[in-house]
């Protein structure tokens, strides 16, 4: 074999790290199951059309052709396959799914990024009200709590807010759009030059601060309150404030921030979106929100949907790896299997020692700092007492 290297952007996982990851996944799946969610598994391979609505700014998918020449991809996302299932299988609504699996995103070559990452999440489909959004938050934050994460910040945003405000501005359509892009990219120079015609209007105070309209919840709301009143805006703010109170009540230790200057995570988002991070994490720990337009790419009928997914690898990064525990190696003769099996059940953190001699067993135990339980002690060489 000439090529025994790993493909770019992939890695093996073994030992303690792999065990921690497995434990985190099991905890999350247990949490979903205990709250009455049902399991949904979709294939790793899908037609590329399924992911058409996905905006991919810093990665592309792995692509192949199937035997008919159709483009297949390794799934870069786990939410759109759920939409495909919903629009093709006639599953009765409403429904609550949970899923877990790997997604594949080809990132910049040799940049230290991994192309295969693990997600675990839920999708709640067919519920219009805010209770479904809150159930997602409850699951996301219970998950963080169960991982022992203390310093979690939940950032809430709203997909409709930016357009609602932009549409009120007396600016020509192309300028409105450019202003929105400059706001989303946080390109301050461009943003400032675009809104300058609205200095000395009732929007001045708000527009001056808009690129910085994230962070402390109450401070952001105070700036939003300088905007002219509109029923649409008031409905958005009312939901956001109620959601903050909900989180404060359920998870008083977690911080809630608000971001009203950010682009929706995906074009199909229609309502509240939320992400979680800690002070030190380099990635978001979870991300989700409401996407009532999710299924519109697959079917004509609009269906309410809200979901959240954990980045399992980011959770592993934030988890302290346990120190290697001392193991007990059980050494035994070929005819002592039953006894060995019994000891294995009795002694915590033990394993059968499969060496052919007691000397080899001693060497193995010494080299790893483990204990040796020799069941052959006191037996004669021929295997009898």
């Amino acid at each position, binding site marked *: 074999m000439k090529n025994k290297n790993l493909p770019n952007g992939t890695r093996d996982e073994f030992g303690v790290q792999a065990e921690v990851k497995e434990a985190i996944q099991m905890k999350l799946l247990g949490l979903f199951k205990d709250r009455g969610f049902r399991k949904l598994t979709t294939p790793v391979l899908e037609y590329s059309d399924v992911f058409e609505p996905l905006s991919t700014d810093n990665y592309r998918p792995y692509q192949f052709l199937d035997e008919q020449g159709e483009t297949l991809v390794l799934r870069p996302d786990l939410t759109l396959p759920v939409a495909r299932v919903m629009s093709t299988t006639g599953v009765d609504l409403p429904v609550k799914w949970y899923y877990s699996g790997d997604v594949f995103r080809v990132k910049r070559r040799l940049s230290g990024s991994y192309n295969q990452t693990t997600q675990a999440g839920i999708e709640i489909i067919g519920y219009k009200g805010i209770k479904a959004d809150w159930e997602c938050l409850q699951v996301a934050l219970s998950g963080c709590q169960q991982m022992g994460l203390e310093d979690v910040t939940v950032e809430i945003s709203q997909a409709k807010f930016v357009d609602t405000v932009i549409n009120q501005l007396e600016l020509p359509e192309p300028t409105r759009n450019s202003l929105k892009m400059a706001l989303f990219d946080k390109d301050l*120079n461009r943003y400032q030059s675009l809104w300058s015609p609205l200095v000395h209007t009732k929007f001045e105070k708000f527009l001056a601060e808009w690129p910085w309209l994230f962070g402390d919840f109450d401070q952001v709301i105070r700036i939003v309150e300088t905007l002219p009143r509109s029923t649409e805006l008031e409905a958005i703010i009312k939901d956001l404030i109620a959601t903050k109170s909900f989180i404060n009540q359920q998870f008083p230790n977690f911080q809630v921030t608000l971001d009203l200057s950010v682009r929706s995570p995906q074009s199909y988002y229609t309502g509240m979106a939320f992400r979680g991070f800690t002070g030190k994490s380099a990635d978001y720990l979870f991300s989700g929100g409401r996407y009532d337009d999710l299924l519109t790419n697959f079917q004509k009928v609009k269906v309410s949907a809200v979901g959240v997914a954990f980045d399992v690898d980011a959770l592993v990064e934030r988890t302290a790896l346990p120190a290697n525990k001392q193991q007990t190696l059980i050494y035994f003769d070929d005819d002592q299997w039953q006894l060995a099996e019994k000891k294995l059940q009795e002694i915590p953190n033990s394993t059968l020692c499969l060496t052919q001699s007691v000397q080899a067993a001693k060497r193995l135990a010494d080299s790893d700092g483990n204990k040796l339980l020799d069941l052959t002690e006191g037996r004669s060489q021929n295997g009898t007492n």
Partner: protein
Amino acid sequence: MEPIKIALTKGRTEQQVVPLLEASGINCQGLKNKGRKLIFNDDPRYDFILVKGPDVLTYLNSGTVQIGIVGSDVLDEQENSQYAMLNLSVGKCRFVLASTADFNPQQQRRKIIATKYPNITKRYFEGIGEDVEIIKIEGSVELAPLIGLADAIVDIVETGNTLRENNLRVYAKLQPVNTKLVVNRLALRQYQPQIKTLISNLQTADRQAVKSKLIRE
């Protein structure tokens, strides 16, 4: 609070940006007498690291630094997805299409273009509806049309002196280049007040620098 890590492009960008950083109230003693050092923590609020332009985004995307200061040429070439928040007035130049005097932009064959910036070159020619062959060159790009490796080059020009000295002419002006302050998307949330203050101070220092330059001129 831990200091904010800033990756600064070493070389010309670093020389032009350090006075601005100083004017915005940052202690840059180490950066000014750097010797062979690469990490500087003279100011308790910031750790500076000196890296090559293309590496700024690698550090920034991994989250190992929170802020990068780098030319827009690098950001455009690498298709940046972080927040390029601020243009600084230093390091302004422009991409151009240049070649020898006998180059004919209307020539009836597929042109060969040498450049350090294949993505920017590809996008420019796609934009004008032309398909060209691109040859990636690592440095001294001006040589390519002189030696006959390429019909023309796409490169950055500041004063135009290098082009003139090598008898090359500008055939088209492409996008301008400037120095940008780029912030990691998540770090902006984690260090919001500190980054806001840094940006505001830098904006003031930059405006001041532009004003005093205008007065001098």
